[in-house]
């Protein structure tokens, strides 16, 4: 595939740079479904992880889920991808009830949900472009599905991958192996992968927790831009309150599995933060690194 892809590399790169601006605009025609979370509860071995959480998430919102470790943030996110089933209650993506999905329908749901992980979860021994092309797998039809088993993708798919990489500014690393990239670069490739996946909703599980402040801001800026330009719903779990304040349209606060806050970041007062994170060991507003710290580093 390498020869086939690089034969027209120069033209592909030019196309990719021109096409980069088009990626999110093309997706703008797509409206994310309304996500209705209705009294969802979940226990693991008797331990309550989610306690009757209800929320409605409207299309195009950037939602931050905040809370302490073990508050149920990740469990809620995993319920949305149906990586875990809800114990009781229901989740609807538009008209689709996630509880009823299995087999093919479940795979189609996962294709519509782009997932970003704290540990990036790229295939480390594959090249950047192959990792981005993974996002195209659910869209392949006919013989192309079989060709993909040998990592062969037709030029149209490769062009999509190059545009997505250009969109996150990773085009020059396209032929490198994923494990040669820094954490921030890997997360940007992971974002390119879900852009190629063309999802209806983006879920991000602690997308910046493994990154330094500058890379974290770069990744959050990219997610924010995707949400603003394309109208895609982005739901991210975050444990830095300042990221939630700086980027989200809406903040959902979880404490011990229960929903304790649901509103715009402006309403997130210090008293609210104490309610979400608790009092001990230090006042949170000063315990968290702040954006001015980041600016000082820069």
């Amino acid at each position, binding site marked *: 595939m390498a020869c086939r892809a690089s034969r027209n590399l120069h033209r592909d790169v030019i196309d990719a740079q021109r096409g980069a601006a088009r990626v999110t605009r093309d997706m703008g025609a797509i409206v994310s479904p309304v996500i209705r979370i209705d009294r969802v509860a979940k226990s693991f071995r008797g331990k309550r992880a989610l306690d009757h959480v209800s929320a409605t998430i409207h299309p195009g919102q950037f939602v931050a889920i905040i809370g302490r470790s073990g508050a149920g943030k990740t469990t809620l996110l995993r319920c949305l991808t149906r990586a875990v089933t809800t114990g009781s209650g229901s989740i609807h993506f538009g008209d689709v009830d996630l509880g009823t999905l299995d087999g093919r329908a479940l*795979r189609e749901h996962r*294709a519509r949900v782009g997932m970003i992980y704290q540990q990036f979860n790229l295939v480390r021994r*594959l090249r950047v472009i192959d990792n981005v092309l993974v996002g195209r797998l659910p869209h392949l039809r006919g013989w192309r599905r079989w060709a*993909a088993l040998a990592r062969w993708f037709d030029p149209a798919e490769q062009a999509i991958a190059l545009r997505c990489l250009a969109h996150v500014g990773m085009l020059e690393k396209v032929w490198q192996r994923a494990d040669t990239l820094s954490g921030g670069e890997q997360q940007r490739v992971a974002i390119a992968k879900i852009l190629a996946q063309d999802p209806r909703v983006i879920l991000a599980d602690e997308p910046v927790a493994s990154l330094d402040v500058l890379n974290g801001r770069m990744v959050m800026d990219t997610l924010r831009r995707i949400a603003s330009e394309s109208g895609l719903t982005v739901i991210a779990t975050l444990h830095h309150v300042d990221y939630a304040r700086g980027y989200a349209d809406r903040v959902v606060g979880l404490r011990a599995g229960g929903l304790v806050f649901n509103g715009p970041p402006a309403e997130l007062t210090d008293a609210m933060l104490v309610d979400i994170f608790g009092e001990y060991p230090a006042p949170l507003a000063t315990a968290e690194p702040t954006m001015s710290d980041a600016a000082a580093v820069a």
Partner: protein
Amino acid sequence: MSVAAGALAGLGTGPVPPAPPHASSARRNLLVLLGAAVLFAVAGRIIELRPLELVRDVGNIGQFLKGYLNPSFANVGEYAWQCAVTVCIALWGTLLAACISVPLGLLGARNLAPHPVVYLAARRLMDVLRAVNEFVFALMFVTAVGLGPFAGMLALGLHTGGVLGKLLSETIEAIDPGQLEGVAAVGAGRAHAIAFGVVPQVMPNFLSYILLRFESDIRSASVIGMVGGGGIGFYLWDTIRAFNDREAATVILLIVAMVMCVDVVSSRIRRVAI
């Protein structure tokens, strides 16, 4: 080196704090040693261990050596050809083994098996293939497909298939699940998830296992002719049984040379490919 400085000034002096008591393991070690000694003594009696006979019959060994130090080159062409046949048996046997091991390894990996029953069935099948020695398989295939290298290759392939399958399934169980989840999460089907999430992770190890087993298959193939499986093994058996020491020496020399050549080639491949 002294700790009696700065903030740690107090640590160099003063009474030693009493540590909590701990059990001594000397008694247990002695018992283990005694048990092992008894076990080996009994085992030695059973196998009629008589090291003195090595010394007493040193004259016979000299008799042997005389023949072995004068290898005969009368039939060396035929022996060399049979060595080539042996390498071919090992090549095809390893290929067959790799083909058998891929489905068995995938189904026998706990994290990929579609159902626990499938997992158990694949694991037990691999156990059977590994438990039955390639010689036993060779005896079966000689009756099924007749004498010759084809029977030997089938026997090697089946046995090695079980070994490679087990190694592969354990490699798959040790993969980083995050990379697989990252592929499965885009809604990829099972085959795609394996091709992208599993294969790149296990490929280097699997290739190196295949090379390792190929080297071992060469050694097995060099004796499988003793039971009719083709290759140089037939002449090895024939010349030794007939006390044809000079011919046997040639055969053994050729086998040693062949094994060394294959080891050199395969280690070179390993360095380049993996």
